[in-house]
């Protein structure tokens, strides 16, 4: 009896030490779940969810401080992957009237006064220019977040929807004839 208690006690102690050591030695830096959630978000950095960017929203989601249906650019697809990853119920988009049309910001250069306000607002540094110099948007880097539009004192930034062309066109999902269910 004592032998059993003793040996089990010794084993328990050893394993405890081993676990304690490995939790220090193999400690994971950062928050892997937040990283994963962040990778599922569209990285528009638009702040429409109420958080100042995609990463803060991801962290709030992990902490359970935010609903999963706040990302307007991500839409239903993002809601369903978030629901799956976080084990929550699928919800309809919080702002049901919000529609996201992929667009690019375009600065109408003849009106630009070079105030640099849009440059400071851009979350991905996609606007180049300097004080009293004309500014322009780097098309490839623009996420279409619209954050540069309100600060512009002369309203010279247009959001132009991205037009589909033969290189970006995708095949539509075939529609089954009515009444067919699989």
């Amino acid at each position, binding site marked *: 009896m004592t032998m059993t208690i003793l040996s089990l006690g010794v084993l328990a102690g050893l394993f405890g030490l081993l676990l304690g050591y490995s939790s220090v030695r193999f400690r994971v830096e950062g928050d892997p779940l937040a990283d994963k959630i962040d990778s599922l978000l569209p990285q528009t950095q638009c702040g429409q969810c109420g958080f100042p960017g995609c990463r803060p929203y991801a962290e709030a989601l992990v902490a359970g401080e935010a609903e999963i249906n706040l990302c307007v650019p991500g839409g239903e697809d993002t809601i369903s992957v978030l629901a799956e990853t976080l084990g929550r119920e699928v919800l309809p988009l919080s702002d049901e009237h919000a529609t996201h049309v992929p667009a690019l910001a375009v600065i109408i250069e003849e009106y630009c006064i070079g105030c640099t306000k849009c440059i400071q607002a851009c979350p991905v*540094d*996609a606007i180049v220019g300097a004080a009293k110099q004309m500014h322009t948007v780097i098309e490839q880097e623009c996420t279409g977040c619209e954050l540069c539009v309100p600060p512009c004192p002369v309203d010279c930034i247009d959001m132009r929807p991205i037009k*589909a*062309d*033969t290189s970006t066109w995708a095949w539509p*999902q075939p529609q089954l*004839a009515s009444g067919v269910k*699989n």
Partner: protein
Amino acid sequence: MARLHTFPGGLKLEGHKTISTGQPILKAGIPERLFVPLNQHIGSPAECTVEKGEHVLKSQMIGSVTDYVAVPVHAPSSGTVIDIQKFPAAHASGLPNDVVIIEPDGKDEWLERKPLPDITELDPSELRNMIRCAGIVGLGGAAFPTFIKLNPVGRQISTLILNGAECEPYISCDDMLMRERPHEIIDGAKIMRHALNAGKVIIAIEENKPEAIDSLQALADDLDWLDIQSIPVIYPTGGERQLVKVLTGKDVPSQGLPLDLDLVVSNVATAAAVHRALDHQQPLISRIITVTGSGVRSPRNIEALIGTPMSDLIDLAGGYTEDADRLIMGGPMMGITLKTDATPVVKASNCLLVQTPADHATEAITRPCIRCGECVKVCPVKLLPQQLYWFSQSKNLEGLQTHNLFDCIECGCCSVVCPSHIPLVQYFRYGKSEIWKKEQETVKSDRARERTEARIQRLERVKAEKKALHAARAKKNAAGADRKKEIQAAVARTKAKKAESTSSTENPDT
């Protein structure tokens, strides 16, 4: 004759080829307007090098390229560029593409052509460059730049396979080319063999084209490097991988190329285009196209300039029948539906098929999948179409990829045999483009994340720098205050001294 092999699956389809092979190839002549798209190949589009109002000569380059996977575009006839604008493209989307519109002057005046030195004395890389400059792409339908295919990238190519199988129903342009112009194909084969430094060349032709086999065989008898191989008629034996399997018994690896087996496969019409480009300095400005189907009165093969509107070809083939209702570029199995017959002929247009309602009557009656497994039996790539169909329907992109969707050659066998008439290939095309879209989005969002993080770091750095600067200034100010005090003290001391000395000097006076 070498021993042949078989590939899994496949179908015996009714050919419908004789309806368009009764008459010789007709030369279409110069249309009223030429609509030459700048993007006619797989890869980046060409950039326009001419301006509105400019006069161009036949074979003059009108679109140049800088990217590797791209070839230039040439003027199909002499005339005036009247506009460069968007025009419906020969593309499944029917979306507009950039097109150079030329009004021909009717003179068909060539750019000055200089005779080339003997081909066999040219370096293979020079040869490839010439083939590129002539704008040559694969004419079997995929329009992949030929010069890239002709680069063996360090491998010793054993065999160049010229594909004359033409297994898809209705299409007969390669058949007519082989019958009427076998020397062009063989001269082209010579050049391609030299560019690849390949051992031998096999021209593979389906057994149902005896005239083509005879006409090529008559020229091949004296050439020890050339074999004409007749192969059994089974769809899709003209697919690159299937043809390699039939001729060699080897499997091209998944996601690989015939090059991995030291083989190169090219279309017979491409070989003829290579011959024209290097022996006659004619860039790719025309091609043979089969105009056929139950919707045209007099189906036939027509040699048309690139940029000729499809409607002109319909007129040359006797016009539409009363019940014609659908235009397809390519064959009935793999072709794409065109929205308008104003669409111009492009380098990839091997066939213009006009259908009537009877040809596609089954499409309207799609029923649920009954899990019969017929699609699995006919798949030449040994995929599970039924499984892929479920995945595609539920947008399970991961499932699609683990079940090798990208090995699907979209031959359409599964759609044809499906007793429920499910458009399976449409589902697979949809799945593929969803995966590509997702990949592009991931690349874009990763970049946006990197840039955001870099920005946050930069802002923090700037903040820290500012703070440091303020601290330094405050220190300086504090130091300045000390110095002031010191100076004040010194001033006070001097003043006191002065006062002392004046009082002492005053003293003797008193």
